[in-house]
Each structure stands twice: as structure tokens, then as C-alpha cells.
């Protein structure tokens, strides 16, 4: 009499354990793959993580893009008009990457404290300004005004 019922309980238990384990794994993957965004001002203030990848965004500083001759390594400076952070990247740049335009990079600091980008994003529209970049520019401008003479 009890065998089918007990078997059903067992199965139910197994399914429950499976669900709990997979939800746990999923949430861990979620946590591990959350990429935080930092503006140049925050990076200069030391708020950005040193051993974890993060996203750095702002404007590409005018006249800052320098290519090594005959290689794909490029250096440029990301700025929020107050502070600036130099970025190194090896690879083809996206179509809409331009000096003076918004950009978001994904990367991390290497042992020498240089920011090495794995990905450079600048997409879709010539007037495109990533919302996080726009917000970062606003904040930096406000902070500077606030820090000035009153």
C-alpha cells in the first residue's frame, strides 16, 4: 500500500533537491557575472575593484588614441571631463568608436595597475550616449561644481 506513495515522496524530494540546487547554482552564476560600472572619477578615487573585471565608461578623450605601428594594440584615455583613466586594448575597434564620443569598456587592472580592456563597446548610433556614461558625466560635473569655491 505504502510503496507507491513512498516512491512518490522520494521522487518529489529528489525534484525539490534538484530545484534548490539549480536555483542556488543559478544565483551564484548571477552573482559572479554581475559587472559593475565605474566612471573615471570613481576609478581615480579608488572605488573600482582591483582583482575583478568591471566596466569603465566615459568619453574618449580627444587626441588620445594611439596605435602601435603595425599591431592591433591601441591606447586611449577615457574621461568624464574631470578625471581620466588610460585604457589599453588589443583588437579591432568597433565601427562607431571615435574620439570625443561615448564608449564603454569591459576589463580589469593588470599587475602594473594598467587598465586592460577585453571589450570595447560603442554602438549603433552616431549620437549614441550610453546612459551610464551620461549619468557619470553629470555626476562628475556636479561634484566639480560642488567642490569649487562657494
Amino acid at each position, binding site marked *: 500500500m505504502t510503496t507507491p506513495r513512498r516512491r512518490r515522496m522520494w521522487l518529489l524530494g529528489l525534484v525539490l533537491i534538484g530545484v534548490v540546487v539549480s536555483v542556488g*547554482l543559478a544565483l551564484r552564476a548571477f552573482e559572479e557575472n554581475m559587472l559593475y560600472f565605474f566612471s573615471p572619477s570613481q576609478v581615480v578615487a579608488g572605488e573600482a575593484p582591483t582583482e575583478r573585471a568591471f566596466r569603465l565608461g566615459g568619453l574618449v578623450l580627444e587626441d588620445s588614441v594611439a596605435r602601435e605601428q603595425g599591431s592591433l594594440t591601441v591606447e586611449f584615455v577615457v574621461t568624464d571631463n574631470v578625471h581620466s583613466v588610460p585604457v589599453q586594448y588589443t583588437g579591432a575597434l568597433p565601427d*562607431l568608436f571615435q574620439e570625443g564620443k561615448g564608449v564603454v569598456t569591459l576589463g580589469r587592472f593588470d599587475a602594473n595597475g594598467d587598465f586592460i580592456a577585453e571589450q570595447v563597446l560603442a554602438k549603433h548610433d552616431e549620437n549614441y550616449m550610453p546612459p551610464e556614461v551620461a549619468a557619470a558625466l553629470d555626476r562628475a560635473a556636479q561634484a566639480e561644481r560642488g567642490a569649487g569655491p562657494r
Partner: protein
Amino acid sequence: MIPEFGQFALVLALTLSLIQAALPLAGAHYGRSDWMALARPAAAGQFVFVTFAFAILAYAFFTDDFSVRFVAANSHSQLPVAYKFTAIWGGHEGSMLFWLLMLALWTFAVAWGSASQPLELSSRVLGVLGIVSAGILSFTLFTSNPFDRLQPAPFDGNDLNPLLQDPGMLMHPPTLYPGYVGMSVPFAFAVAALLSGRMDKEWARWMRPWTVAAWIFLTVGITLGSWWAYYELGWGGWWFWDAVENASFMPWLMATALIHSLAVTERRGIFKSWTVLLAISAFSLSLLGTFLTRSGVLISVHAFASDPARGAFILMLIALFSGGAFVLYAWRARLMVAEGGFKLLSREAFLLSNNILLVVATGAILLGTLYPLFLRNLDLGEISVGRPYFDFVFSMLMLPLAWLLGVGMHAAWKKVPAEALRRRLMWPAAIAVAFGVTLPWLLFGRASVLTMVGVVTGFWVVASALLDPLARLKRGAKGVGLTRGHWGMVLAHLGVGFFIVGATVTTAYNVETDRAVSPGDRWETAGFEIVFRGTRPVEGPNYVADEGEFELYRGGELLTVLHPQRRQYRVQTAPMTEAGIHASMHRDIFVALGDPLGGGAWAVRVRVKPFIRFVWLGTLVMAFGGLLAATDRRYRQRAKAPAAGLVPASSAREA
């Protein structure tokens, strides 16, 4: 004056949609057949007026009427004629009109196809569609009028975004939109059932082909979008877990769950309340997708306009449609009575696990898509969720789904002995393992455990799907033929198998290199020799370009010459990449020009993508399976047998 006719037509359509929403529903409630009879003519009238408005907008594009703001913003006198037409859905206002046109088309089709249905049910379905139509029409007229004028009219237009000047624009939106919008039909059926309390197998059988039809469009639309992004945007990737992609993929997952749940409801009269919930959720996610792409919370190639007023309006519509439906569900759910039970080992149980896995996958994608938006809008910080999260969670859920799918296809309704399944599936399983483990080694000389698991899973689904047709072949002409619906299932699942093999192989063995090259350079990548011959300027109808010449050799023999371009359009000057692709069934070679490095040197992207065509072949085969299933004889017969709707559900049990 002509554009105002378009606007006027939309106002008339709105009036008709209000009639279609109010009177048939009231008529069904009070049993007034004269009110219910208004549903069909109102739907037909709406279709006529929305089509007319669409034609007027098309006319404004063809005649370069830049006094219409929308035309000025999205067209240009030099734009090739085909793109003047596609520019209609190349911006926000026009794409809403296109949405409406699709809705009017679906409504008209339902009205026309329901001639043999009980008047009460069809009136309710059309009434709900009328409510949806009234909502979207008001949204279009009050926040996004495509016929708004510009004073004074500019001399020329702002041009269509160069990214959208591509044949993909002619194919991707016109297949995706009907899919998106088509989810309103099962939604209407679900709400109609909640209103009437009548949720039987007849109802499910009527709803099923419509749901599959919308699913087919969604499948093809997403496939074409993926293919387009691959050659235009993606530098060789085929899926990015971009928020906009997710916005179309979540309704697809829900719709997939829904058609499986409907199979159970139609055959066995159970899972009713689950079916209703899925139908409501699928449409809600379609609306959410519209909200995400149209409110400006997302920035992407799909997000045309950022206007908070529009976002608020769409949120209100979502609250009204979905919220209303869910409240109705809570109130009426007790009316849904299961007409039978099933054992733990039965087709029902397998389909239930299919549904659970698909819904959980949708939830996981929803979390990854909405959480960053949530934080941003509450000013709690800027995060994004990296693709490893989506890749990991999705494959973790889809692998078991595929394993169960191979078994479930051969499980009988109600109850199946484990021994029978084991005997039937031993050989497919053995074949899948043998092929899946050896093929990657034979073809690529290396394979990780995960790759082998993926390929084995793909072959498992393929082998299991082929079992029935093979058995049929062995029986010869004597045996009973498979129904069209059965063939549909076999093909759709075959497509799943192809997709899994393609996605696994192309992810595991793709080779991606970026390189700085000068004219005359010769280098080797993934067994191919590539020679860069330099670039030359070329001119298109509305752009200039640098066109590169790359010779591809394999074993010293010339395979092909690729001509990727880097274009600069005259009006919107952003540079655009046109990749050169050597496509074949088992492998693509993809070459794109990056940025010029000076002195004739270029940054170049080279991608070698084995089996990538199987990804799209797989989903297209799925869609073809859906087409067979939706046109099965038992759905076609209904038009000829008007009395069928009157047969009590109990006597049609074994249908």
C-alpha cells in the same frame, strides 16, 4: 492633406475597435446575438481602415513627403526605393502602425476562421482582441502619431539608420512582428474562456493552431534576427543575450511551453488553468518586450525613441491587459476542472516537466534582463549581467529538457510502462552516445566533456525523433501512416536536435582572430591561408566604401575571394561594416574590415565558424514542423463541420 486621411482612418479604426470591444462581450454576457453579430464586421472594418492608414504612410514615404515628421526623420530622397518601404517600420511611430496592422490582420483572420464556431466563444475572443486593439490604437494616436506634421517641411530627410539599410530589414520585422502580436490571439482565447467558464477540449482545439501559427512567426523572426545580427552587427556571433533579444526570446519560450501544454489540454482535458496562465504570460511578455524596446529604458538598434510618456502609457496598458487577466484568473480559476488524471510515467508528466523547465528558463532570463534596469532606474548603481550567466543557466536547464524530450516523445498518454520505454530507446541512446563522442574527435581532433555532452544530447534528440518515421518505413505501405500533426512533432524535435548540435559545435570550435594586415600579407588561420590584396574605393547608391579583397586558400587551392566593405553613408556618416562571408553547410568563414591603421594597413576580423548554419537550419526546421502541426487535418476539417462545436466535450474524448 493626404496624411490627415491616414490619421482619420486610425480614428475610425479606434471607434470600431471600441465597438468590437464593448458590444460583443456584453452580448455574450446577456445572450444578445444581435450585439454579438457586430464583432465580425467591426473586425473587418478595422482591418480596412488600418490597412488604409498603413498605405497612406507608405505613400508618404514613396513620394518623399518630408512635411510628415516621421518620414523626415527616417527617409531621404536618395534612399533606395525598397528601403523607403522598410523605413515604415524603421522608426517608432511607423513600427507601432505596423504592430496595429498585424493585430488587425490576426483579428480579421480569427473572425474569418471562426465562422463555424459557436457565436458566444468567437464574440468573446474578438471582443478581447478589440480591447487590445483599442489600447494600442490609443497609444499610437495619442503618443506616437506617425502622421504628425513638421512646419516648415525640411528640404530633405534625415535618412534611415544605415544599419537598417539591409535586406534583413525586409525579412526580420515582418516575420517577428506577426509572432509578437499573434500572442494576443491565445491571450484572447484564454480571457474568453475565463469569462465564459467554458474550457474544454473543443476550446483548446480551436486555440491550438492559432497559437502554433504565432509561434511559427516568432521562431522564424528570431532566426532571421540572429542571422542578420551575425552578418551585420555581430562580428560573427549569433546570439548575445542582449536585452532586446531576450525581449523576443522570453515570449518564444512561453509560447513553446504553451503549445505543449495545449497539447495536453486538447487531448486529455487537463492542465487547463496552466494553459490559461501560460497564454496570459506569453502575451504579457510580448507587451513587456514592446515596453523595453519602445520606452527608452534600453538603448539599442531596436530602441528608436526615448520618451518617458510612451513608457508610462505602455506600462499602463500592461497593467490593464495582464493585470486584468490575472485578476480574472484568480477569480475564475476554480471553474477549471481536470477531466482525468495521469501517472508519473506518462506523456503528461513529460510535458509537465517540459513546461516547468521552460518557465524556469524564462524566469532566469527575466531576472538577468530586468535586474540591471531595476537598479538603474532606482539609482542603485550600474550593473550589467555578463553572458556567462545566461549561457550557464540556460544550458543547465535546456540539457535536461532535451534528455526528457527524447523519452517523452515515445511515452503514451496516461501511463507507460518503464520497460517499454527502455526497450524502445536503448538503440537511439546507444547511437547518440557513439556518434556524439566520436564525431567531435574525428572532425576536430579534440573535445571537452561539455562539448561531447552537448553533441550527444543533440544526436539523442535527432535519433529519438527519427524513431517513428523509421518504424513507419519498416512497416511499409501496410502500416498506418503518421498524421500530419505527428510529422510536425517529429520535424520540430528534429530541428531541436540540429540546433543543439550546431550551437554546441560552433561555440566549442569557432576560431576568432583579430589581425593587423597590409596589402600582400599572407597568413594562416584554422587551416586556411588568407591573402590580403588591399582595398579599393567603391561607390554605392547612397554611400562610399573601402572594399577589401581577401583570397582564401585551402591546401594551396583557391577556395574563394571575399570582398568585405567598410561603408560610409552620405547622410548619417557613421561607418558601417559589411562582412565578407564564405558560407557552407559545415562551416562559415567570416572576414570583416575593422578600422584603417594607416599606410594601406587594416585591422581585420577573421572568424571560422563550423556548423553555424545548423543553428538556423534547426530553428527553421522547427518552424516547418509547426506549420505541419498547425495544418493537421483535424483543424482543417472543422471549417466543414459547423456542428462540431455543439458536440459535448465528453463524447469527443478520444478525438
